[in-house]
């Protein structure tokens, strides 16, 4: 029990220290800019905790969470999936096109749209996976290129002469509207509209945890991530694992933004949100690849971002939010490393106390 408590203490001390450090850092910046830190934090807290804003934050959390899980899957295999952005945009775009072109009953239409996103995301990511396994090309390079190619492909297909539509007095380009049968209902709660896609996101989190921790596949994945050679030597088909992991990461990336599509816009347009790749990677880092950790990190991110405009409106630079996010990531990474070293030293001392005589005899034996 005592051991468990001490373990929990060491697990929590790192993020708490990171947040404290970040608050102090941001306070200093705020004071340099002539703004009062305490009232700024109060403003962020009170505005972010207004019920309507909480719903907006939760809706944003869904997308961030899925991007975070997609990144975490890659991280477990030491794969840096910076292609989440291209994967998700292409996936949502094709899903919107398929949804706009079909009008099936809801129980078929919704799964069709969602599965299209998953499949497209997985296929697009597996290009990078294939190149990594067969040609030994860094997934970072190929994914950045694939992001650019995805942008080009989407704008080519989104032209009015192809798959897109242009409004009479608007310069926006959009895919045809998904029929009502493909709309996912929102939940009226706290004076807002919560996307019911939240349940899918929760399901993905549970699945991620179960597959990774309770299945042979998950064991092989973690093993390959820890040591490619050792895993290979013990009979794991490591290249195959890399390929599958990349595809899985892309499949989850394909769900990012799906809540927005199914419950809000019902179309993919030039105004669709972007830039989820970097956020996802940051959140996986912050949440330590843990499904619950990423959820907290994602909500925290959305919470801070929601406050940016209210700061702006009160004459406090909104870039404070980005500084807070950045300093939290840096200090988290640093404080986990520090905690890791401290606990390792503690363990070594413990082990040393118990095993010391043996070590001595062994050493003697070696000399002999």
């Amino acid at each position, binding site marked *: 029990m005592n051991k468990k408590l001490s373990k929990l203490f060491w697990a929590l001390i790192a993020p708490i220290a990171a947040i404290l450090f970040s608050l102090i850092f941001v306070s200093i910046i705020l*004071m340099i800019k002539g703004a009062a830190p305490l009232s700024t934090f109060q403003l962020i807290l009170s505005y972010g905790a207004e019920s309507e804003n909480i719903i*907006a934050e939760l809706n*944003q959390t869904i997308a961030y969470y899925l991007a975070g899980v997609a990144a975490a899957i890659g991280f477990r295999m030491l794969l840096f999936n910076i292609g989440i952005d291209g994967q998700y945009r292409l996936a949502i775009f094709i899903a919107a096109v398929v949804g706009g072109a079909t009008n099936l009953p809801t129980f078929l239409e919704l799964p069709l749209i969602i599965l299209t996103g998953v499949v497209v995301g997985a296929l697009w990511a597996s290009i990078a996976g294939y190149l990594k396994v067969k040609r030994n090309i860094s997934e970072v390079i190929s994914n950045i290129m694939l992001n650019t190619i995805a942008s080009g492909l989407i704008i080519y297909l989104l032209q*009015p002469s192809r798959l897109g539509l242009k409004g009479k*007095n608007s310069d926006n380009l959009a895919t045809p509207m998904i029929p009502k049968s493909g709309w996912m209902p929102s939940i009226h709660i706290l004076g807002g509209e919560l996307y019911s896609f939240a349940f899918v996101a929760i399901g993905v989190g549970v699945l991620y945890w179960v597959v990774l921790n309770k299945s042979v596949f998950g064991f092989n994945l973690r093993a390959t991530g820890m040591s490619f050679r050792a895993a290979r030597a013990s009979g794991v088909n490591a290249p195959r694992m890399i390929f599958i992991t990349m595809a899985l990461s892309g499949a989850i990336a394909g769900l990012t933004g799906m809540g927005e599509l199914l419950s809000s816009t019902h179309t993919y347009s030039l105004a669709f949100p972007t830039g989820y790749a970097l956020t996802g990677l940051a959140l996986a880092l912050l949440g330590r690849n843990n499904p619950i950790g990423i959820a907290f990190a994602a909500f925290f991110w959305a919470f801070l971002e*929601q406050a940016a405009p209210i700061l702006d409106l009160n004459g406090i630079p909104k870039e404070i939010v980005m500084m807070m996010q950045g300093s939290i990531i840096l200090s988290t990474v640093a404080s986990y490393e520090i905690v890791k070293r401290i606990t390792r030293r503690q363990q070594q001392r413990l082990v040393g106390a118990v095993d010391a005589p043996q070590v001595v005899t062994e050493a003697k034996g070696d000399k002999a």
Partner: protein
Amino acid sequence: MQKKTLGRALAGAVAASLALSVVSLNGTAASAAPKKLVGIAFDLGGKEQPGFNQLAYIGFKAFLKTHPGWAEKDLQGNAADTDASRAQRLKLLIAAGANPVVVVGYSYENALKAVAKANPKVKFAIVDDNIAGAKNVEGLLFKAEQGSYLVGAAAALSSKSKSVGFIGGVNIPLIQAFEAGFKAGVAKIDPTIKYQSAYASNPPDFSGFNAPDKGHESALGMFQNGADVVYSAAGSTGQGAHKAAFEQKKWSIGVDADEALYASNAPYKTAILTSALKNVDVGVASFLSDVVANKFTPDAHLFDAANGGVGFTTTGGYLSADIVAKVKALQKQIASGAIVVPTDPKTVTLPQG
């Protein structure tokens, strides 16, 4: 021992943050709403970057000259924006007491639809879009292709090598209309003129509106490929094209406002042949004045060659009187409807440069 030092460090951190909190007790909480407040919701880029955001802000400044006592609050968009976060921005401006509210860019369309309906007493204007049926929204629509047509004609008349180029910021319909007009203007003067075209980025990457290095590189390539006039409809990316034109002793054409007057373009202003005007500032200022004078009318307001909403500049006198006369004659024909300028660049063909 380890724990002790860590504990000491933690205590220090807590003490430090407490000390900081004590310093900062007087608040900056949301102040009471002033009455005469204009709200502006900017698109990506904001008012610091040359382009329609900045022009909307300049429009407010012009309005302020004739209507002292008004204040302005603005909020800026970002790449991760959803319809919800855009609507949140509009609601915040309204909650701060802003009325009227200027909304910049078509990406706000869905957000504005909902917010305008929920706030019938607030008057809105949206740049480059219109919300049909909304009683409190004015759509500021600009025939940008007409201004581009005029500078296209000016470029064709000024080109000695019979070869011109176009640089677009981002490959979206809004900018394609500029290209279509420019191309048509060139073709009107001489359909055998060689033509090159490039876009600095593809959506959702909107960095092409703020990439002077890319503008420089593209323009340089076009000049080396035989062009002697390049038109950039690309925000501050065009600055790079002006620089390239200055270095190569060729011509560059500006966009939106008279770029020869920009402080940032001062070193290259002798290379700026003319600029295609898209007077977003005039549109915004007239909307604000109309609201104050109780002359607000909803629905689409068209700014074109007929009412001076678009046009071309002659700063520096680099266009000869003969060329200016010819272009002005075309302007009249567009205004009268005798010339209809296309908005799709694919409908105009010129030989590849």
